[in-house]
């Protein structure tokens, strides 16, 4: 096993990887940008090195500097986490060229599966259905218009060069194409450095279901179960769960078989995820492979009892997968809420700021993955993830009940968050019944502003008056001061 691993990431995923490394007796090296000097991942690692300034391009995306730091500190492996350089074939190659093990699929696999067109070709070649659409990237809006006509509306525009939901647009009518094209190609350029888009037939009421796979260097491949990640806004996930509420044994087996075929055809190694879109009738098409650990991997860990980061390190070090497919036992159900610093009531607008009040839930069945503490700033430059709240239960009902209870205990003061969304969703009948698809958020949100009972309103009012009175002579930064300021607006709209 490795002696020392550099973690080329920040935030909760860097902390997550450090935790498993510490449990395995592996020393860790953190890298950080200047705004992250006091971050949790810096403090929990054995060593920490500044690699640049806040913009990712000046720090967490600096391949040469990261590889040089790993060499200088004697690391024998680099774990990329998710995001940043985790799906960058050049990085995987540079790491390998430096004689260091990259904890993830090799550059060769990243290159073929990182190209969505190539990934689609691989899937099609082994008989896995793919969505109708363009096989080659499109860079010209006129060409796009023709492709859309051939594929038929509604279509989905998606960046050819990257994943994670950034830059995606649904186009339902020809006259929406121009605007959507401009937005999508611009975001694709910003996020992935390439403006090219793919055009796919959009499946209405589809569910985003993905299959976790794991492959070792000796050709062993396993599937670890699906996750339904359909609850999304801007094509980015808000809630993920396993088992998928609409996935029966038959569909699970078909998704697993499709994922294993793609993995074998691509010569896959390490952990990865095959994403599928499942239509209401159970038919599915392959979307893409995420060649890295997913944000939502904890739900799979809770249900399987596995440590995916430990398994990533083991197969990267050349070990075989230590269990057979039929030894895998999935217990119960698990669900994750991604709590982010976004204003759920204002279109999920990202909002950085200082977390000045924080209480996380704990107790039976609850896991919290976070790198935040009271006083931490959520930097503007990075994903505004506050915490992943994960609940595990004997069945979906118990997992949901535990999450509902955990959300009641959670307090995040400072920037607005997605917590009001999460709190309401867990009491929304369609979600509770498992009846949801990728249109869920658009159809159900905003849910009505909750009404308080009389007793709750009285208690809140008493506290608000005490806070406002106490705040009057104090500093302008006191959040209680705004209780007064807002009254004028409240009266104005009454």
């Amino acid at each position, binding site marked *: 096993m490795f002696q020392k691993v550099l973690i080329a990431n920040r935030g909760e995923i860097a902390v997550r990887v450090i935790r498993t490394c510490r449990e395995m007796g592996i020393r860790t090296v953190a890298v950080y940008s200047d705004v992250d000097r006091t971050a949790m991942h810096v403090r929990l690692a054995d060593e920490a090195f500044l690699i640049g300034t806040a913009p990712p391009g000046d720090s967490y995306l600096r391949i040469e500097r990261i590889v040089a730091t790993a060499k200088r500190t004697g690391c024998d492996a680099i774990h990329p986490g998710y995001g940043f350089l985790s799906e960058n074939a050049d990085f995987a190659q540079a790491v390998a060229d430096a004689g260091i093990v990259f904890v993830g699929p090799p550059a060769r696999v990243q290159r073929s599966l990182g190209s969505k067109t190539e990934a689609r070709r691989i899937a099609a070649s082994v008989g896995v259905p793919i969505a109708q659409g363009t096989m080659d990237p499109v860079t010209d809006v006129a060409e796009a218009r023709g492709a859309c006509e051939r594929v038929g509306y509604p279509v989905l525009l998606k960046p050819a060069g990257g994943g994670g939901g950034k830059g995606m647009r649904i186009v339902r009518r020809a006259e929406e194409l121009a605007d959507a094209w401009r*937005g999508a190609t*611009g*975001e694709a350029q*910003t*996020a992935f450095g390439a403006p090219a888009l793919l055009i796919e037939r959009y499946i209405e009421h589809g569910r985003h279901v993905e299959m976790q796979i794991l492959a070792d260097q000796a050709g062993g491949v396993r599937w670890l179960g699906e996750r339904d990640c359909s609850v999304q806004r*801007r094509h980015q996930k808000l809630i993920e769960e396993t088992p998928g509420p609409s996935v029966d044994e038959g569909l699970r087996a078909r998704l697993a078989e499709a994922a294993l075929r793609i993995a074998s055809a691509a010569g896959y190694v390490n952990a990865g995820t095959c994403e599928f879109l499942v239509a209401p009738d159970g038919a599915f098409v392959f979307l893409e492979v995420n060649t890295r650990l997913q944000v939502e991997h904890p739900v799979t860990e809770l249900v399987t009892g596995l440590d995916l980061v430990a398994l990533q390190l083991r197969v990267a070090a050349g070990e075989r997968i230590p269990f057979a497919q039929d030894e895998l036992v999935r217990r119960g159900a698990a669900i994750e809420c991604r709590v982010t610093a976004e204003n759920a009531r*204002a*279109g999920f*607008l*990202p*909002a950085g700021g200082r977390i*000045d*009040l924080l209480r996380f839930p704990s107790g039976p069945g609850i896991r919290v993955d976070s790198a935040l503490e009271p006083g931490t700033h959520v930097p*503007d*430059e*990075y*994903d*505004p993830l506050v915490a992943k709240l994960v609940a595990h239960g004997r069945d979906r009902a118990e997992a949901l009940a535990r999450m509902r209870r955990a*959300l*009641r*205990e*959670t307090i995040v*003061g*400072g920037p*607005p968050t997605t*917590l*009001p969304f999460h*709190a309401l969703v867990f009491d929304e009948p369609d979600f509770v019944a498992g009846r949801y698809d990728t249109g869920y958020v658009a159809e159900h949100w905003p849910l009505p*502003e*909750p*009404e*308080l009972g009389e*007793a*709750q*309103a*009285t*208690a*809140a*009012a*008493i*506290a*608000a*008056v*005490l*806070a406002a009175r106490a*705040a009057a002579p104090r500093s302008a930064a*006191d*959040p*209680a001061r*705004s*209780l*007064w*300021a*807002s*009254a*004028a*607006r*409240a*009266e*104005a709209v009454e």
Partner: protein
Amino acid sequence: MRYAVRVGGRTVRLETSPEGRMLVEGRVVAHDVREIVPRRLWSVVVAGGSREVALLGGDPPRMQVDGVEVAVAVADERALAARRDRAAAAGGRHEVRAPMPGLLKAVHVSEGDVVERDAALATLEAMKMENELRAPARGTVQRVAARAGTKVESGALIAVLVDDAS
């Protein structure tokens, strides 16, 4: 002092007496309030009912009551009248401001445009994503205060809307 507190869809009228008693809707209510985190988190027990109230911050401020997040506003009686006057004068004017620092990628409206509620007024790129700044109400664009392609600070004025109704 009398107060009107707007919270969670209700307006609660409170009165504090000089002896420190608290009247709710004119009645004395047995309440036991403890500050858990100074000016941020309270335990309020009223007639046996136990509530946890957190002031989350924000503008307008948000509170969390037993896990339920709602907007809150406090007005005292003297301020009420004065503010109502000012509010009426300013009524119908909406300032759209940048909620966070970023690059203003595009401005989609010009002065004089009539826009629907939720119409996209401008696109702000921040935190690696494009965010649409939307109209808070149907109205006429009175002023466009920022140019596409410029960096804007948090709170920077982007546009001013005037309600059609006003």
